[in-house]
């Protein structure tokens, strides 16, 4: 099985980690938002792990809960109206949800950093980029203003912003979209964190600039052996950089798989639908495959499998029972490492 060999090529966890515990482990995480119209269940039992040096892509449409999960990990969820009724987020084996605000602040930025989608609205327009980059060093390492500025220039050099020395006192609006995203990356990298969460880092960028930014991110990740959670809806970007993929739908993970496996043999009808709806060359002039219907309203998620109203394979059981994340196996029962599918009929989906 060549495909399995390929998934083994994921770099081993960073040496010196705490005896084999993964870098980050999310266990049965639930997030809900209390609104006037009712309780919106944004995340309903998400599990995933990320090791050092590994890239996990979280794929999903808007409203699937992928960004909310990330915000819960970072501890930047608005609470209220947000609430985490159950679940654990283990960083090096320690549950961050039980930590004090003080402890979490020490992790945030220093150990786990985040890159946001819209760089223009994530940067403060009235402060120079040098000041904003330097803030990381002043707050976390207690450096002086002057030292922090030098560090900021160094960082801007590292993310390949030309003439960093002259541009350090410029303001965000003076940079182009790609450059602003580089500044966001520089800010996330400032303290050499162990885990980076990138929430749609290139969605607002043009393809040529997107390629530059993704390349830079991959290179820096290799250099520092960081874990990376890449949140996106772009199946192309995922195929380019991810090691493993978690597909989310209506607040749940519906499929997990190593990247090569997922594209070759999806085990969930939703993943299959997404892959089939990509325009392909040989389908020119024909109708595109489209998943019918709309993503569900989080205030009233369908009973049973949340995908059942849109699923071509739905049976009665799908409308009543919520499918667990089944372990996916070969036809002869041999386990496929890292694969899971939350579909009652995963066998039929993957083995035809």
């Amino acid at each position, binding site marked *: 099985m060549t495909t399995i060999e390929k998934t083994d090529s994921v770099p081993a966890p960073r040496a010196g980690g705490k005896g084999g515990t993964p870098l980050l482990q999310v266990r049965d995480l639930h997030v809900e938002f209390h609104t006037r119209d009712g309780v919106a269940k944004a995340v309903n039992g998400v599990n995933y792990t990320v090791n050092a040096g590994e890239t996990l892509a979280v794929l999903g449409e808007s409203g699937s809960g992928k960004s909310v999960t990330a915000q819960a990990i970072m501890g930047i969820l608005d609470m209220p109206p947000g609430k985490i009724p159950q679940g654990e987020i283990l960083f090096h084996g320690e549950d961050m949800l039980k930590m004090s605000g003080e402890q979490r602040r020490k992790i945030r930025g220093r150990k786990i950093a985040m890159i946001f989608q819209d760089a223009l609205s994530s940067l403060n327009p009235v402060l120079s980029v040098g000041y904003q980059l330097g803030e990381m060093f002043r707050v976390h390492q207690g450096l002086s203003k002057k030292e922090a500025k030098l560090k900021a220039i160094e960082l801007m050099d590292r993310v390949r912003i030309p003439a960093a020395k002259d541009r350090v006192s410029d303001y965000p609006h003076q940079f182009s979209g790609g450059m602003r995203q580089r500044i966001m990356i520089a800010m996330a990298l400032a303290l050499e964190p162990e885990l980076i969460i990138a929430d749609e880092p290139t969605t607002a960028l043009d393809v040529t600039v997107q390629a530059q930014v993704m390349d830079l991110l991959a290179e820096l990740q290799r250099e520092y052996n960081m874990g990376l959670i890449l949140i996106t809806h772009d199946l192309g970007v995922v195929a380019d950089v991810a090691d493993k993929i978690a597909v989310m739908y209506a607040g749940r993970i519906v499929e997990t798989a190593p990247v090569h496996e997922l594209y070759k043999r999806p085990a969930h009808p939703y993943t299959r639908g997404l892959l089939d709806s990509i325009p392909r060359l040989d389908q020119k002039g024909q*109708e595109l495959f489209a998943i019918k219907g*709309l993503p569900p309203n989080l205030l009233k998620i369908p009973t049973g499998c949340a995908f059942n109203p849109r699923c071509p394979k739905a049976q009665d059981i799908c409308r009543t029972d919520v499918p667990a994340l089944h372990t996916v196996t070969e036809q002869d029962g041999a386990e496929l490492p890292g694969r899971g599918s939350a579909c009652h009929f995963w066998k039929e989906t993957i083995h035809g």
Partner: protein
Amino acid sequence: MAELKKDDKAVDQPADATPNTTEVEKVDAATAEEAVAAIEAPVERGEPILQVRNLVKHFPLTQGILFKKQVGAVKAVDGVSFDLYQGETLGIVGESGCGKSTVAKLLMTLERATAGEVFYKGQDITKLSGRALKAVRRNIQMVFQDPYTSLNPRMTVGDIIGEPFEIHPEVAPKGDRRRKVQDLLDVVGLNPEYINRYPHQFSGGQRQRIGIARGLALNPEIIICDEPVSALDVSVQAQVVNLMEKLQDEFNLSYIFIAHDLSIVRHISDRVGVMYLGKMAEIGTDSEIYDHPTHPYTQALLSAVPVPDPDARDRRERIILTGDVPSPANPPSGCRFRTRCWKAQPKCAEEMPLLAVPERFKGSDSPAAHESACHFAEEKDVVHA
């Protein structure tokens, strides 16, 4: 100022510098009635319906408050020529800021062109006014990018789709409008009973369907789609693309499809034009552009698109461009792409390449023989499909 002059000269080049665009059969209408009659005349399938010649739009940059002095111009569109044939889809791709949306606005006559002509059935719409212009506007409609901001939140769906009838009452008499709106809702796949709902009660994909219904209301001949699916969820994009293809067959529409998603453009387009900094870099049929690109910018653009196939990760050759798109207020001399081009020679800085079939491919049957604005055009297969 010297640079401005140089550009002016380029703009003045005769329209026949681009041989692949067909000759314009001009219609000289003496009266408004004649003009309207010419606009109402049907066009055969496969005949050019819209002919754009050396279209230019410069936005002035001014300084001073009381005495505004022009200090320069943003050259958003700088000499673009192409034809749109009846019943076809012309895709226009390019990075943000390349002028593709400005072209759309110029074709809609929402902006007045600085120079150049847009012939709709032989009449230059940039010079029309009054009743003739109104008739043209009825026949060219637009679907906008963001369905969240292009629908008035205080109007019901019925009012939104019916508003075009207020301006062009000849299309639907007053008593008939409600039924017509319901028909339109049905055509775009929405429940006709939703006529009294407000936009916020719909999802993104449904809102875009409302936008399409509004575009269809006046039975136009051309619909200009400015990034119609880029704001939608992936699973909904395919639905909207399918709907647009269905409507094209049903109503015999011609589309100008502006987008940055190259795979969707390829799927829907018969011909594709690639724009860079206000100019057309390359134009040809979809397979000419995607399988046999000859302009380095097209090649870089295609190679940068992530392919949804992890096995292709290592095999793919990627051309990663350095830097950003230069400012259109101060574009590079000569070829506009030269600052990011790996093939650039001194000639590229001095001489502006014309959009024409490259000399070396002239007369050959090869698919590489399509219009490309590069001094050193050569074929390079970057997609390996």
